[in-house]
């Protein structure tokens, strides 16, 4: 018998995590390193990215401060990356805005960050063959893209729905290289993103009661899902949107 049976190990894999300076991205980077992966991290905020680096189980395989909506900075990131066995694209933003205020400008701002940036990065990682054969790509979508989970999330939700659509096509097209592409659709997760004050703390507490499992998600709830999708445990899973939402969408 093997000493330890662990199909979720990331030992020997190199994983890129974007949005690694905060919330789900930071937690995912730390969790991957604790599962044995060498982790490359990127985000816009250098100071907070450094803090993540210090919390990794092993020093980062690469650490690049970059705004992924900027082509030149994406180029610099790609130049610094080692060959990858996985990528978790967490960088994103949200806005709470009723549809009647959702101008083209507001949609563009949201789509630049939540859709065009991760899609462009995934495209280049594949095209430049930075993603090795058998690699796993995980996109952070949202139940906002599959359900209308809260008023005011139409602009945000549309960007995540679009991301899920590209995920499925990429899964099909990348399969000859045995590269898998999946997404995670979290419900509301307690990260700095949801505490910006448009929605009051009282309203958030009230909303959390709508979740059958009794609370909002924690970043580690999502990081654990990413570990599954990155590991060999999910070798036969591609083109899937994994809903992790405490039962909200049942």
């Amino acid at each position: 018998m093997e000493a330890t049976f662990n199909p979720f190990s990331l030992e020997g894999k190199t994983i890129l995590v974007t949005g690694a300076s905060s919330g789900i991205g930071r937690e995912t980077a730390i969790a991957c390193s604790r599962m044995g992966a060498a982790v490359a991290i990127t985000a816009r905020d250098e100071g907070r990215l450094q803090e993540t680096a210090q919390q990794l189980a092993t020093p980062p395989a690469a650490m690049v401060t970059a705004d992924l909506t900027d082509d030149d900075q994406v180029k610099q990131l790609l130049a610094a990356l080692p060959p990858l066995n996985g990528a978790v694209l967490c960088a994103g933003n949200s806005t709470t805005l009723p549809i009647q205020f959702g101008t083209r400008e507001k949609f563009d701002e949201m789509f630049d960050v939540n859709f065009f940036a991760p899609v462009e990065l995934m495209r280049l990682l594949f095209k430049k063959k930075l993603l090795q054969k058998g690699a796993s790509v995980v996109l952070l979508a949202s139940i906002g893209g599959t359900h209308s989970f809260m008023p005011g999330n139409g602009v945000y939700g549309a960007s995540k729905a679009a991301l899920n659509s590209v995920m499925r096509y990429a899964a099909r097209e990348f399969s000859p290289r045995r590269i898998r592409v999946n997404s995670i659709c979290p419900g509301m997760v307690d990260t700095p993103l949801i505490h910006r004050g448009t929605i009051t703390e009282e309203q958030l507490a009230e909303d959390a009661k709508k979740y059958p499992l009794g609370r909002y998600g924690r970043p580690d709830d999502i990081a654990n899902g990413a570990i599954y999708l990155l590991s060999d445990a999910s070798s036969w899973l591609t083109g899937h949107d994994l809903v992790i939402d405490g039962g909200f969408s049942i």
Partner: protein
Amino acid sequence: MNIEEFIENFASQLDETAPEEITAETRFKELDEWSSLTALSIIAMVDDEYDVIIKGNDILKSDTIQDLFAVVEKKRR
């Protein structure tokens, strides 16, 4: 910015309450139709019309439209 115009902008976010019923002294959260979506619309309207970002708490702490007007005016400076 003046209060009359603010009241008008505020009233246009409402569907059930006649604009003439809305005054500076209206305790807006006591309106039957008040909801979290109305609050989001007010926040978006203030951003649009006055280029001021108010938060959910600003609405929570304001009782009357005059109160909210004062918050927006203060943040605008």
